[in-house]
């Protein structure tokens, strides 16, 4: 109970600060929206050659953009934490008796709410552009996206509190994100690539997550990819939460 209460104090404080700057929510969703509007039309004549079971460019593209939103948007969550740390906020919170994990979880809840709003905007716009998917699939797809987002936000917060420097964070995120983006089949499916490229992407957990969201959007719940993708999302979330809470619990973080 105390934990929930403390988490909600942290969460409400974060939300209040976000609402003071609602532009950030929109700026965060701008990138996937631009992909949707400016890249989606390029896929329309090509999508039936992908062999992904859909001939609708947007049913194909939106799931990838969702996962991308979950990864990229959440990875930047740590930057605001560095700002707070620099101003002494984190330390002030750490001399209160509040549970240190609550300090992290309250912030993650903010990141997830923000991600949910962005995901709804993206999917809504997708429908306008011509996306047609199963409702249950869309709901499940967004849920998987939130798991991925939670994992990335927790990792980002852990990285922020470990490095305590934007100058270190930014290159690390870039180095990690570029291969993830290219090997996950977010914009184009890995199935159209050369065999060696496919083999490499087999080692990329996010590829299975993208495949899973794509399948459930298309109404295919029975395939192995749904199990693999959901499984990976859960595993990544658990790992990142473990990392995040251990950093927040560490003395002198």
């Amino acid at each position: 109970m105390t934990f929930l209460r403390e988490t909600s104090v942290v969460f409400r404080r974060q939300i209040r600060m976000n609402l003071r700057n609602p532009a950030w929510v929109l700026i965060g969703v701008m990138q996937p929206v631009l992909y949707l509007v400016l890249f989606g039309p390029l896929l329309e004549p090509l999508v039936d050659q992908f062999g992904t079971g859909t001939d609708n460019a947007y049913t194909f593209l939106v799931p990838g953009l969702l996962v991308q939103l979950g990864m990229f948007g959440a990875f930047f969550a740590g930057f605001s934490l560095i700002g707070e740390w620099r101003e002494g906020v984190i330390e002030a919170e750490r001399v209160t008796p509040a549970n240190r994990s609550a300090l992290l979880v309250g912030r993650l809840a903010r990141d997830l709410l923000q991600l949910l709003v962005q995901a709804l905007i993206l999917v809504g716009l997708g429908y306008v552009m011509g996306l047609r998917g199963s409702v249950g699939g869309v709901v499940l797809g967004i849920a998987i996206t939130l798991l991925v987002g939670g994992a990335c936000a927790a990792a980002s917060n852990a990285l922020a509190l470990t490095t305590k420097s934007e100058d270190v964070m930014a290159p690390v995120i870039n180095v990690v994100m570029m291969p993830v983006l290219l090997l996950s089949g977010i914009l184009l499916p890995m199935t159209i690539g050369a065999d060696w490229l496919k083999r490499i992407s087999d080692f990329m957990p996010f590829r299975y997550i993208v495949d899973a969201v794509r399948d459930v959007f298309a109404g295919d719940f029975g395939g192995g990819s749904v199990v693999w993708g959901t499984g990976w999302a859960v595993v990544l979330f658990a790992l990142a939460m473990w990392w995040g809470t251990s950093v927040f619990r560490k003395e002198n973080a």
Partner: protein
Amino acid sequence: MSNGKMIEARGLTQTFHTGRGKKQTAVHAVAGVDLDVAEGEVVGFLGPNGAGKTTTLRMLVTLLRPTAGTATVAGYDVVRESVQVRRSIGYCSQVGSTFSGAYAGDEVVDHGMLYGMSRTEAVAKGHELFDRLQLDGLWRRMPKNMSGGQKRRLDIAMGLIHSPSLVFLDEPTTGLDPQARANLWEHIRDLRAQQGMTVFLTTHYLDEADALADRILIIDKGTIVASDTADNLKANVSGDLVDLEVAGDEQVAVARDKLASISDSVEVEGHHVRGRVARAGKAVPGLLRDLDAAGVALDSIEVIRPSLDDVFLTLTGRSLRDADETATPPEAEPGQPAYDTTPTA
């Protein structure tokens, strides 16, 4: 506290490791500190940069686990009962405690709620503190739009929201202009005078420790080198400088002899006769009677009390200013603000 002790530390030690692999060296930032603070006391913790002030403080407020030694704060062990310690103390760090883009009142209320207060309680207490700390009207102001003095007072309000009986102030007036500084001193004095709080403050300003503290602890190179009242420290160390200005040439020798009877270091320069005298406040009335009886007329008499800088110089052989310049703070690790400390245990 049944024994009236607010802080009791024994052999408190913090060792950092810098460098990696074979180049790793141990830095003893705090090397066995013993200290006691009684309930209701205002203690000034003085030392040059990098002497171990902040590191000691961070161990006492449970932000840093001691490498060795023990500390009891407000009756609780800082390691085993850290949550109870946190509940009992307020801490105002030198970097601040509020987000620059949030409303001051919101920050204070949220902080109180993290201590388990209800919103209503926290709002009421917050307004009371804002009134008392001259922050009235700033409830809906963001710290980025506040003056340095207002921000420090807001930090104090944050530290006091849960009505602790012991408050730690880390360099509370660093970077403030003289007026804001004097104003903050008044508020710090009020903490004890009106609320009976125990105050533990670190500073590297001598006058600040002198003006606020009942007792001064001096730390240098990780160990406590002195613990006494400012007056005693000054008296024991060098004595006060008594400067007599004699009216006539022929009286200089007489004045010198009289001063020499209570001082062993008399110098003469023109009409001025100077000497160091322990506890001059007590000795000077007798000296004046003697001089009067001997027919010596004075143009002026001045008693210059030694500064804490003199004290530090005598204790360590270095002046505080030099110590600041030569110190290599173990806290200053690359990529981190100088106040932070990172044990690589």
